[in-house]
C-alpha cells in the first residue's frame, strides 16, 4: 500500500477533528410545539400507513417534554395546540385510546387550573362526538372538575352529559349516576332524590345491581334530608 494513502488518512482524521473543534457548541433549546399538519399529509408521508403514523406521533408527542438536552414541563406547552395534535392522532386512528388517555391522565394532571380546563373541555368535546367510545374519559373529567378544579358547576355539566347520552347499556351505571353524587355534594339533596326516583320509575334501568344501588342511594338521601330538616327545626326552636 502506498505510504501516501496512510498519510492522507491520518491527515483527514486530524482535519475532521480540527473542523469539529471550530464549530459553534451545540446548546440545548426547547422547541415550542408547532401546529400539526393535515391528517392527509401524515397519511401520505407514511405511505398510506395512518395507524402506524398515529402510534409514532403518540410517542413523539408524549416525549415532547424531553427534548435533546433539555426538559420542559407540561405547563410550558401550548395546550390549545396540544389538543389539535391529539385530534390529528385520533383522526389517523379513530379506534386508538392513547390520545384520550394522555389527555385525561397526563396532560390533564398538570398543576395548572387553566390548562386542566382546556384538557377537560377537549375530553367533553370528544365525548359529544362519540359518547360510546369516550365516556370513561368524561367520567374522569367529572372527578377532576369536582375534586381538583373544585368547580361543581363544571362537574355537573359533565355528569349531565354522561347521564343524558347514556344510550342503551354502553355506559355503566356508576358513570351515568355520577350526576346524583355531584348533586348530593352540591347540597342539592332533594334534586338528587327526585332524579334517583325518576330513574327507577322510568323503567329504563333493568340492571338489578343498578336498581339496588339507586334504592340504597334513596335511603341515604332521605336520611340526609331528614337530618337537615331536623337540624333546621332544632335551630328554629333554639332561636325561639
Amino acid at each position: 500500500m502506498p505510504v501516501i494513502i496512510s498519510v492522507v488518512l491520518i491527515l483527514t482524521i486530524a482535519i475532521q477533528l480540527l473542523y469539529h473543534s471550530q464549530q459553534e457548541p451545540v446548546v440545548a433549546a426547547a422547541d415550542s410545539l408547532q401546529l400539526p399538519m393535515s391528517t392527509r399529509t401524515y397519511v401520505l408521508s407514511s405511505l398510506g400507513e395512518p395507524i402506524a403514523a398515529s402510534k409514532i406521533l403518540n410517542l413523539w408527542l408524549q416525549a415532547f417534554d424531553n427534548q435533546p438536552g433539555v426538559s420542559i414541563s407540561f405547563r410550558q406547552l401550548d395546550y390549545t395546540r396540544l389538543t389539535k395534535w391529539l385530534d390529528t392522532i385520533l383522526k389517523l386512528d379513530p379506534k386508538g385510546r392513547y390520545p384520550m388517555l394522555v389527555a385525561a391522565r397526563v396532560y390533564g394532571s398538570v398543576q395548572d387550573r387553566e390548562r386542566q380546563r382546556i384538557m377537560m373541555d377537549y375530553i367533553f368535546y370528544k365525548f359529544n362526538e362519540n359518547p360510546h367510545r369516550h365516556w370513561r374519559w368524561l367520567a374522569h373529567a367529572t372527578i377532576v372538575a369536582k375534586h381538583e378544579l373544585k368547580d361543581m358547576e363544571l362537574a355537573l355539566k359533565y355528569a349531565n352529559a354522561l347521564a343524558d347520552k347514556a344510550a342503551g347499556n354502553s355506559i355503566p351505571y356508576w358513570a351515568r349516576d355520577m350526576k346524583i353524587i355531584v348533586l348530593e355534594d352540591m347540597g342539592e339533596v332533594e334534586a338528587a332524590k327526585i332524579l334517583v326516583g325518576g330513574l327507577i320509575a322510568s323503567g329504563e334501568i333493568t340492571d338489578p345491581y343498578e336498581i339496588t344501588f339507586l334504592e340504597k342511594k334513596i335511603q341515604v338521601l332521605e336520611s340526609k334530608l331528614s337530618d337537615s330538616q331536623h337540624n333546621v327545626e332544632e335551630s328554629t326552636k333554639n332561636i325561639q
Partner: protein
Amino acid sequence: MLTHIKTISKFTIIEAMRNRLVILTLLVMGISFGMIEFIGDLSITERRVTQVAILAAFLRLSAMVIITMFVVTSTVRELHDKTLEMILAMSVRRSSYYFGKLIGFSYVVVLVSILFMFMLLLYAPAEQVLIWGLSLMLEMMLVVAFALVMLFSFNQIPSALTGVFVLYAASRTATSIYLMSKYPIIPHDTLAQEFMDGFIEMLTWLLPDLHRYTQTEWLAYGTAQWSDLPPLAVQTFIYLLLLSSLSLFDFHRKNF
C-alpha cells in the same frame, strides 16, 4: 419451455440463497424486534397495538426494499455480465426467461413473507397474521413485476430502483392524493388545477390500489376477514398480467 422456466427459477432461488438474503431478512427481524420492544417500553397504554402497528408498517416496507433490491441487482448483473445473452443464445425463449425469473422471485417473496409472519405471531393473533402475510405475498408479487418492468426499461440499478420506489409510493398513496384533490380545502376551478385533478384520477385508474393490501389495521384491531383476500388476488392477477405483458413487450424489442 416448462423445463427452461423451471431451470431458470431454480437458479434464481439458488442465487437468493447465495446472496445471503435469508440472513439479511433475519437481520431486519432482529433489528425490528429490538426497536419494537423499546417502543413497547415507551408506551403508556395500548402497548401491543402500538408495537404491532409500527412493526407491521416497518416489515412491509422492509419486505418491499429487500425484494426490490434483490430483483433489480441480480437481474441487472445478469444483463451486464452477458449471462442473459448466453442464455438467449441457447434455444431459450425470452418469455421462458421472464417467467422463470418471475417464478423464482415469487419463491423469494414467499420465503421473506413467511419469516416476517413468524415474527408477527409474537404480537398478533395467528389468523390475522396469516391473512396479512398472504396479502403481503400478493403485494410483493406486484413489486417483483414492477421491478422487472423497470429494469428491462432502464437497464441501470439507480434508475430501476427509483422507478420501483416511485411507482410503489404512487400506488400506495394514489387514493389519498385523489381524495385531497377531489375535496380541497379551498375550491378551485383553474384549467391547470382541473388538468392535475384529471391526471390524478387517471393514476387511480391505472395503478393498483395498494392501500387495500396488507393493512396494519388487521393486525392492530383484528379486523381482517378471509373475504378481504379474493379481491386482492383478482387485482394482483390482472396487474401481474399487465406488467408481464409490458415487460415482455420491452424485452422482445431489445437487441442483445
